[in-house]
């Protein structure tokens, strides 16, 4: 019984950690621009696919990963520079459609530049499972959890301890005021898209040894990541991580204890229930309307 529960839990937190990385990307971009970037999942796909093809081109794994993250960051910056940034003053819904257009474009590009097959990466440190109280965990899962943790700590440090991070938070709270105190909000926007793309790509690289990637592989991860960001409270860092874990664990427990056919439905029902009782997510600001 305990072994089963632990197994479900391991599955949930591994998958949840990936959702959390995607959710963090959603939140960072939302904070800077109030845009929901529906191309976030494509950054995940680019991370995985680019690493695969860089390795096929002869690069060693670590170098391939770095190049892949760089490619994703370039895609993120381009999205800000040439699409979202060009549409100041457009309504939020319009901006969302622009990012959906971008996601279709990036998928199309990936299928042409790379291919439509699925690809995998070798596990970073072997496939010998680790046994824990009757349950098993792959070394790759530990990589996923470890890297997510490190990324979370780094982000926390960045946003609370560095001037640039504080500038980003300030911009999130009040763009005009941030501009008035001399923050280059344009740069902050670029930075947030770059950062979100990097997070997505890291998630993509981490998961590819477990679940192969292909040109449309980012779609569902993007959707789940968005759900996680919303459950946690949009724009809230810790919320994104907790949200990711909740969605991941809900799916695993749903599959384990309720019905694997309806596990996704179970996760979404849970999300709806959270929203019905906490309309701004778990950590979202419940501000009073000012009139």
């Amino acid at each position, binding site marked *: 019984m305990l072994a089963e529960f632990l197994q479900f839990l391991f599955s949930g937190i591994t998958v949840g950690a990936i959702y959390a990385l995607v959710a963090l990307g959603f939140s960072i971009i*939302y904070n800077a621009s109030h845009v*929901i970037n529906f191309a976030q999942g494509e950054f995940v796909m680019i991370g995985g696919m680019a690493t695969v093809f860089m390795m096929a081109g002869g690069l060693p794994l670590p170098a391939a990963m770095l190049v892949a993250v760089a490619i994703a960051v370039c895609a993120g910056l381009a999205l800000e520079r040439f*699409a979202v940034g*060009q*549409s100041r*003053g*457009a*309504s*939020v*819904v*319009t901006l969302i*459609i*622009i990012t*959906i*257009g*971008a*996601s*279709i*474009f*990036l*998928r*199309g*590009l990936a*299928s*042409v530049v790379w291919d439509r097959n699925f690809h995998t990466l070798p596990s970073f440190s072997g496939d010998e499972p680790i046994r824990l109280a009757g349950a098993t965990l792959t070394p790759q899962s530990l990589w996923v959890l470890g890297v997510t943790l490190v990324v979370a700590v780094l982000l926390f440090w960045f946003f609370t301890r560095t001037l640039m991070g504080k500038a980003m938070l300030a911009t999130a709270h009040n763009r005009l005021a941030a501009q008035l105190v001399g923050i280059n909000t344009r740069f902050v926007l670029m930075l947030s898209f770059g950062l979100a793309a990097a997070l997505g790509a890291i998630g993509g690289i981490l998961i590819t040894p477990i679940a192969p990637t292909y040109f449309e592989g980012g779609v569902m991860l993007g*959707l789940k990541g*968005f*759900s996680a960001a*919303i459950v946690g409270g*949009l724009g809230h860092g810790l919320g994104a991580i907790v949200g990711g874990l909740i969605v991941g664990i809900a799916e695993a427990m749903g599959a384990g204890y309720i019905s694997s*056919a*309806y596990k*996704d*439905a179970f996760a*979404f*029902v849970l*999300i*709806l229930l959270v*929203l*019905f009782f906490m*309309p*701004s*997510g778990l950590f*979202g600001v419940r501000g009073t*309307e000012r*009139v």
Partner: protein
Amino acid sequence: MAVTEKDAGTEALKRGARRTALLSPRYAGVGALILVIIVLQFFFTNNFHYDVAIKIGLSAIVCVGLNLLIGYAGQISLGHAGFFGLGAYSSAILTDSYGWPPLASLFAGLVLVGVLSFVLARPILRLKGHYLAMATLGMGIIISIVLNQEVDLTGGPDGMPVPAFSLFGWSPNSEPAWYWLVSGVLVVTVWLSLNLIDSSIGRALRAVHGSEVAAETVGVDTTRYKVLIFVVSALFASLAGSLFAHYTGFLTPVVAEFFTSIQFVIMVVFGGMASVFGSVVGAAVLTALPEFLTVLHDYEHLVFGLLLMLTMIFMSKGLLPSLIILIRRRLP
């Protein structure tokens, strides 16, 4: 003195109103739509053309309804394909498995969707913005999962056949017949929507979009109107879904998928929010465009994404409103 001045003013207003009434969207717009529908079919040389036009019409019915919710009342829904799918499957299952007449099945679908959307609307529409988007998205996905998993009822992902439609003994058994049927429904949908917008309910809806708190201070029960329009738009989707099921004659759960919902929203925003005719244009362009892009083969999706982005970047108000502004600027 003051009294006569005021009377003169309102008299002028009335005259003006009468004069512009004939040129209003309700008359000129619907007239033009009917004209386009009639003229268009002279250019059709085969059933493929009719097929694309019929699909445009069916999407447009959903989008016009969805625009009432998104464009006019300012509430997003990323789950309307769920209602479209429920309407479609109600018709399919009741006619195929239970032998109901198509019209009765269609109404049963409307009742089901009406009740479901009404029950869901209150808790869901308490949410705002992106949280509302998430909730409607989740709702749509749950519906599509059910349709996909209940293989005994729906045939699952391999789909199920749907018997032909019939209306009091008449059955549209050719593409042109379907074209006229769908066009007729579309025109009625557009007309009803234009009427609704230009009524006290329509103004209340637009007020909800403009400022919820201000609407409340003049007595608009904003929750009630949000629920109302959510249900109305869901019913439009269900109606289109039922017709779609009978038209294609074969149904898979893809119709209720998340992507289908997104596609409807894209059509609404692309055509122009708060523009009934914009939704028709959006549905038309985005349904027809991929058929042209097939010549690009592998580059089809890439180019489609690019065109979508560029249009929204340079015409952020949507295609039709932006074109109108452009034309107005050109004209003196």
